[in-house]
């Protein structure tokens, strides 16, 4: 009996990432989402010519496409953030530079997600002239 912490507390705070299996599970769930949404996106690119801006806007503006594109954008940014986070944790070792890298990684992914979401919504709500 060398510790007063309960087994539960040890488990809940465990691991170098300090979040147990949360990261692992989140990565798998977002991967499953991207597998479905990404396949839809690739099939769309094959069957629809989106090279012209007007055609692209008309396609994005259709509600089912707007919604699926929003989901794809968020899932991609989330999954990408989880992946880059692991790479940083593997290769960046200084305690300060590691935290800075992880925060910048998160910021960058939020910016990418916000930009994509903003573009989709602007087109969906008829704001793209």
């Amino acid at each position: 009996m060398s510790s007063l912490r309960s087994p539960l507390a040890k488990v809940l705070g465990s691991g170098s990432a300090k979040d147990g299996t949360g990261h692992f599970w989140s990565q798998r769930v977002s991967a499953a989402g991207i597998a479905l949404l990404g396949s839809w996106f690739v099939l769309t690119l094959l069957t629809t010519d989106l090279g012209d801006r007007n055609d692209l806007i008309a396609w994005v503006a259709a509600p089912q496409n707007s919604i699926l594109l929003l989901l794809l954008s968020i899932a991609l940014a989330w999954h990408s953030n989880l992946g880059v986070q692991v790479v940083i944790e593997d290769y960046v070792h200084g305690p300060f530079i590691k935290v800075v890298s992880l925060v910048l990684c998160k910021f960058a992914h939020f910016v990418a997600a916000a930009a994509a979401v903003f573009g989709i919504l602007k087109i969906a709500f008829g704001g793209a002239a």
Partner: protein
Amino acid sequence: MSNSGRPLSPHLSIYRWPVTMTVSILHRVSGIALSAGLVVFAWWLLAASSGPGAWDQFSAFATSWIGQLMLIGWSAAFFFHLANGIRHIVWDFGYGFELPTANASAWFVLVLTVILTAAFWVLA
């Protein structure tokens, strides 16, 4: 060295690079490449929503030879990461860890990536 047939430690001159390691490294490399591609994905949507000027800038990049080359690279990275990601999820369920199976699935993922990438650009 009379006891031939027994396992030896890896050594530079006798080490055979396993295909499973190549695919493992490629999974991480393709993931990082796709993270960079996310920026272009956001740029694509943002440019379309902004106006003809912004769209022409994106279009000029996407249709240039370097842009086309990068798009082919991103498509290959996507198909590889998708196929190998499914391989990883099968592993998560506890299947396919046997060495012959893991080697075969690694080669399958590589061949599938080439086929899907080629098919995508031929059909697109």
